[in-house]
């Protein structure tokens, strides 16, 4: 199965026809926010006015991805989002509480449902095909990917649009900060790993992909497999999951040219990555990505965009020159809050 196109709205300059991560955006504080494109080129301006930020980001990345692939109507639209349309949920919920359940307007409620983005894309395309939305915390994007890959395998689809989307809002940020997810002292995302401590930086993003059963000749990469596992009891179990995953793809860690891990700058969170890098991943070039996009439940969609881009380019631009070898296989390992863990394996076409 092939990644035929990818589109990514993120806190970096990743959307549209831009050089690959040349000028990195710096954020100081505890939060990275998406650099939003001019939506008018992608969505009817009349519709844009009604859409909240996450819907615009989702629809724009989805539509751009289809455009890149030259596909008018995909055979399925599948999204993953842990929190869904938070801004709309917050608007309706706040008004409901403040106005004591009186004189409420329907728009925010209508747009608050988690399937709004995949539904809006279907509506814009007049796409009557399979449409699904996973809301499974840190495995939302991975579940969507698995659904897409199964549809391709089952012969139910040839081209599937699949994406991972989550947004930060003022209130979600305030609540998660109180829960201790983010740094209490301001930090630069460039320095996040030089000053590890307690907490990370909040992030968000919208990354979409076209997965195709057949090669188009211009694919970014192949997607070999995706796996997610839930609350492993200890590091040994994580190691076992990784080993089983690689075995199932008839490969092993020595054949992996690059590992992308989900470090987020929080000491406790990153301990497992450290252990793996010291032993299991030892000798394999490794990079992480959350200094670019921040931490959020569907950040593995950003990681997959990064991996696919690196494979398309041929070599990894973030490792030292001595380690620069042609990329044939890239493994992504991420976990969100130690609850859902996931593995994605990509390879060169």
């Amino acid at each position, binding site marked *: 199965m092939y990644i035929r196109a990818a589109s990514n709205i993120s806190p970096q300059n990743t959307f549209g026809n831009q050089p690959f991560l040349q000028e990195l955006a710096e954020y100081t504080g505890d939060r990275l926010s998406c650099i939003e494109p001019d939506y008018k080129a992608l969505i009817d301006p009349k519709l844009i006015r009604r859409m909240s930020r996450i819907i615009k980001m989702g629809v724009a990345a989805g539509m751009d991805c289809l455009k890149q692939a030259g596909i008018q109507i995909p055979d399925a*639209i599948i999204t993953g989002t*842990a929190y*869904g349309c938070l801004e709309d949920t917050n608007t*309706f*919920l*706040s008004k*409901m*509480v*403040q106005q*004591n*359940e*009186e004189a*409420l*307007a*329907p728009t925010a*409620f*209508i*747009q*608050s*449902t*988690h*399937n*709004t983005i*995949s*539904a*809006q894309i*279907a*509506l814009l*395309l*007049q*796409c*009557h*095909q*399979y*449409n*699904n*939305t*996973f*809301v*499974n*915390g840190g*495995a*939302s994007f991975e*579940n969507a990917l698995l*659904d897409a890959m*199964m549809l391709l*395998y*089952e012969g139910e689809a040839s081209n599937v649009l699949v994406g991972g989307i989550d947004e930060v809002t003022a*209130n979600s940020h*305030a*609540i998660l900060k*109180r*829960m201790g997810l983010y740094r209490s002292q301001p930090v630069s995302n460039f320095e996040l790993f030089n000053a590890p401590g307690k907490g990370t930086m909040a992030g968000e993003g919208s990354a979409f992909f076209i997965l195709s059963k057949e090669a188009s000749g211009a694919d970014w990469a192949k997607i070999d497999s995706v796996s*997610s*596992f*839930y*609350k*492993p009891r200890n590091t040994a179990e994580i190691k076992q999951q990784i080993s089983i995953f690689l075995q199932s793809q008839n490969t092993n860690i020595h054949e992996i040219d690059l590992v992308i891990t989900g470090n987020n700058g929080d000491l406790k969170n990153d301990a497992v990555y450290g252990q793996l890098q010291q032993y299991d991943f030892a000798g394999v070039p490794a990079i992480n990505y959350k200094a670019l996009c921040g931490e959020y439940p569907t950040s593995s969609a950003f990681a997959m965009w990064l991996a696919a881009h690196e494979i398309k380019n041929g070599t990894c631009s973030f490792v030292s020159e001595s380690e620069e070898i042609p990329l044939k296989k890239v493994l992504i390992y991420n976990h969100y809050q130690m*609850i*859902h863990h996931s593995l994605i394996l990509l390879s060169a076409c």
Partner: protein
Amino acid sequence: MDQPVFIAGLGVISAIGNTVAQNLLSLEQEKTGIAPIRYLDTEHRDEFPVGEVKLSNDELAELSGFKPGISRTAMLNLIAVREALTDAGIANLAALRTGFVSANTVGGMDKTEDFFRDFLSDNAKGRLRDVVNHECGAVTNLVADQLGIRHYVSTISTACSSSANAIMYGARLIKNHMLDVVIAGGTDALTRFTLNGFNTLMILDKQPCQPFDANRRGLNLGEGAGYVVLVSERIAASLKKELYCTLSGYHNANDAYHQTASSPEGTGSLLAMEGALKRSGLQPANIGYINLHGTGTQNNDSSEGAAISKLFAGHNPKMSSTKAFTGHTLGASGGIEAVFSALAVQRGLVYPNLRFETPIEGFSFTPETRFSSQPAIKHVLSNSFGFGGNCSSLIFSKL
């Protein structure tokens, strides 16, 4: 790869009972669960009748084993799942590749609403434990942890078709040889958020709803949870109990008409039903009973009815909406109605469409008005349609 998927266990809690047996008895006795609001803390208490589970949060905590203070959605979820698992009686669940695929639409919103009362006046206020399970997926995790299921845990949310999609996804995980057993379905508790949301859309009935009636006025919201235990052929063969049926067909399509309204001709509904028939290798004439989505809104029933008139022209099966009993339980409806459908096909039952009086003009069919035994039924179709044009149909077939 197209191995059959069997249903080995059922669990349900709804406005008409806390167990499968209680639900079935209410259906048989034609006893509705729609009543004035008793438990939901809302300003609209005396305005809209609803299908509440007839237990307080404290009583649900006791029944489920959760500590009081957890989301009602999770408590309903655990009660129904536990019943389904006990019913299936799979001895060595831990040794099998067992998945939990659950649906809901608003997660722990009932607790978030409490949190927001304090939080909005001062964002340093509000008890964090009331918002920690806000996410849909967090509710699933709470239940998975109680059951000790870790092999595969997933959550789906596609509005009112959510749990039909969870059952479909679960079946495909078995067909693709990734799992042996999947507990699939959905849960949703009544919340102020959804009650007020549907109120702004002006589709709530101030009286008990009348699905598929010419004079229908809207829907009654409900709450509950419904789960089926799906098993592979290998596991099915190893069980010493009688299985309910197979899940022989399913299909997911999109109406692509409007964010909240269905197309007049029922494009998405028709595609979903046609697709499910095609997968099961059946003709419309093979369907003995349709458990309708039948919310009682003008829009849904005319749209769904148009699609049914077209697809089943000439050989209308018996059909009814059980939402007149349970209310529209949103993310749980496909799961609850899957339980009803599995029982209908196994035992040859047709449920009444309560309060039906006047046929809708132009439709060639009318819903059943009495409970009846129909031993000839071999296949049952269940419809679940939702916001965002999400339309899914499931077919349950006799063994």
